[in-house]
């Protein structure tokens, strides 16, 4: 197994959250929930796990009476995500499969 492969990150919901966060500075909780097609509570659980690991930070704000929650990838989370994506790319490349390396940090 690739040494940079991150078992904690490879849980589908967590990897999806990080993939959605990677191209942005802040992403709204509702957008994450709707895109991953999960429930508020299930997403909260995964976001909390990622926050406890230091991979994401959460900010709550009030916009014209509506409470909004935003999630951001931390520098540590971005590094972990880059390493994990690179590990996946190497696994694919080692098997000789056609692989277009994603730019998870872009």
């Amino acid at each position, binding site marked *: 197994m690739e040494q940079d492969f991150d078992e904690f990150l490879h849980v589908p919901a967590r990897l999806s959250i990080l993939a959605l966060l990677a191209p942005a500075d802040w992403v709204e909780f509702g957008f994450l929930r709707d895109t991953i097609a999960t429930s508020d509570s299930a997403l909260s659980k995964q976001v909390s796990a990622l926050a406890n690991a230091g991979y994401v930070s959460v900010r709550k704000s009030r*916009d014209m009476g509506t409470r909004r929650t935003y999630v951001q990838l931390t520098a540590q989370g971005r590094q972990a995500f880059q390493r994990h994506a690179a590990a996946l790319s190497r696994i*694919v490349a080692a098997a000789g499969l056609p692989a277009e390396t994603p730019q998870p940090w872009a």
Partner: protein
Amino acid sequence: MTPDDAQTSLEDIRGLQDRTRDAYVRHGFSRPYALASALVLFIAFASFDLPAHWDTLAVTSGVGLALGLLVVHQHRAPVRRKPTGPELLFCAGVAVGLVAAYVTFSVAAVVAHLKLGLPAPHAVAAAALALTTLLCTNPARRVFESIVRR
């Protein structure tokens, strides 16, 4: 982790990243904001036909509306990110294009005013600019999308 699983994960990552970028572009070019932007442009540029003091009031209203629009736009964005260099260049290019279009429309409207008696030439030019802005929204969105996806 098999190579096929890894490849599937990479494809999923790529697809999800595109969803974030699409949301960013979609919000930036959404119809309410395009309409509001066209209205702000019309108010600001049509004001040149107004007498002194009233033109200042109209421009101030236009700028105030634009700033308010920007704040609401930013607050409601599902995806927030700092624009990259090429994105800023695109916005600068759009601004230059709008000014050039307004100058062209104004020259045509002033000529029509002098020769045909067209009333309020700057208001006509501003209306043409607002219409052009609306018509160009979708093509501009496609160009911006390709820049964001690069």
